[in-house]
């Protein structure tokens, strides 16, 4: 047991003082060096006083992550608004698209155009449906809604023709009269009644509607 202590006691007092001072200083220096390295790895830890906080390190990454989380949370917080806006837009689009026919409903629209002519009450005017021809606009790249044109030929008096156009324009299916040509009917003299009789006007018109072609349209008929 007397080994190191006896050796220490055997030293001169000056040597003893040197050891007593130098050894702790060396240990402290070593620990200080290692701690300085740890401080660099730790970075700006909020538990440390400001003068010990070093740039970089784990806490810089933590702070960056916290900022990143805050930024992402801000985006997430807009979620309900985004969904509400999407729903609003979707509803508006659905509402409008319900007025457009599906591509498979072209013949139904053609039938509707003919039916509207036949539904004109004789008390309101005369309309004779003659022909209809479907002209597809052709798929234009980048256009979601492709036009379909129905070339319609009718004969009618003025009131009947106006009523027919009105019923097309006010139908829940979107149809618009794009071009129209009206040739007035000839005036002839009815020998029996001695009255001037007007023949029916010849009316050609182009009725245009659109179908959505960009994707699968989901809607009921």
């Amino acid at each position, binding site marked *: 047991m007397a080994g190191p202590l006896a050796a220490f006691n055997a030293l001169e*007092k000056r040597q*003893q003082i040197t050891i*007593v*001072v130098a*050894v*702790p*200083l060396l*240990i*402290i220096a070593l*620990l*200080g060096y*290692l*701690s300085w390295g*740890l*401080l660099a*790895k*730790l970075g700006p*830890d909020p*538990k440390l006083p400001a003068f010990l906080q070093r740039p970089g*390190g*784990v806490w810089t*990454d*933590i702070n960056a*992550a*916290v900022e*990143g*989380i805050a930024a*992402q949370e801000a*985006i*997430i917080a*807009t*979620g309900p608004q*985004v*969904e509400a*806006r*999407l729903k609003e*837009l*979707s509803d*508006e*689009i659905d*509402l*409008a*698209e319900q*007025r457009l026919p599906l591509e498979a409903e072209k013949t139904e629209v053609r039938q509707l155009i003919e039916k509207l002519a036949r539904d004109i009450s004789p008390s309101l005017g005369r309309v004779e449906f003659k022909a209809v021809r479907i002209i597809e606009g052709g798929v234009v790249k980048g256009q979601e*809604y492709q036009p379909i044109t129905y070339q319609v030929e009718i004969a009618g008096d003025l009131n009947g*023709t*106006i*009523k027919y*156009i*009105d019923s097309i324009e*006010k139908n*829940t299916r979107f149809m*618009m*009269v794009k*071009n*129209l*040509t*009206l*040739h*007035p009917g000839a005036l002839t003299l009815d020998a029996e009644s001695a009255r001037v009789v007007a023949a029916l006007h010849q009316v050609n018109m182009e009725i245009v509607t659109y179908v959505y072609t960009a994707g699968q349209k989901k809607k009921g008929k």
Partner: protein
Amino acid sequence: MILINLLPPELRKRGAEFQFNPIMAGGVGGLALCVVVLFGFLWLRGELATANDILADKNTELEAKTAQAKVVTERQALIADFEKRRDTLFGLLGRKMYWARTIDEFSKQITGEWSQPGFKVSAGDLTISDIPTEKRAGGADEVRASFRWRYKIVGEENQKSGDYINSFFKTIEKGPFWASQGFISKPDDRYDGDRPRWNPGIKRVIVEGGVDWQRVKLSEFMKKGVKTPRGN
């Protein structure tokens, strides 16, 4: 019994007595300082381990939040697509120009009273056609259509054919047909003269001509804040 210590004082057994030794004190002080610094070092190591755990947790949380935010961002990107689609759709629907009432008003106009008495007007061929307009961003905001028709003015007095023509255009311009149906400019803007001819058989002067009017409609759906109409 009284015990008497007969030993001289320097040989007598002494009790514990503290004697200050500077070297020992320095040694104890140095040791204490080392312990403090060691404690600080160990605390820092513990803090580093804790910080690494916190970082791992935060990174995990960040990944989860980023994934959630990505969903929102993707949905947000859809808004632009939906708005574009809605604008396109409304732009198309907004191009619709209504003709039934226009033709009705027109027929009332030409069979009605004229500011100058003594003539009647009959309509010939009527042609309505779409005029292509340049689309602005998001769709067309203006729709134009041509309204061409042939007219025949039948008047009682040959010398008044100019008055009839003047009355014809002025009455139309001031009438409800022109004012309410979105026609632009004036009815006689494209009038390029005529050649009245006297028909002795019916004793009437006849003036024939044609007009090409333009009707304009602003596509109001393109304006911000205006929603699609529920009906037509």
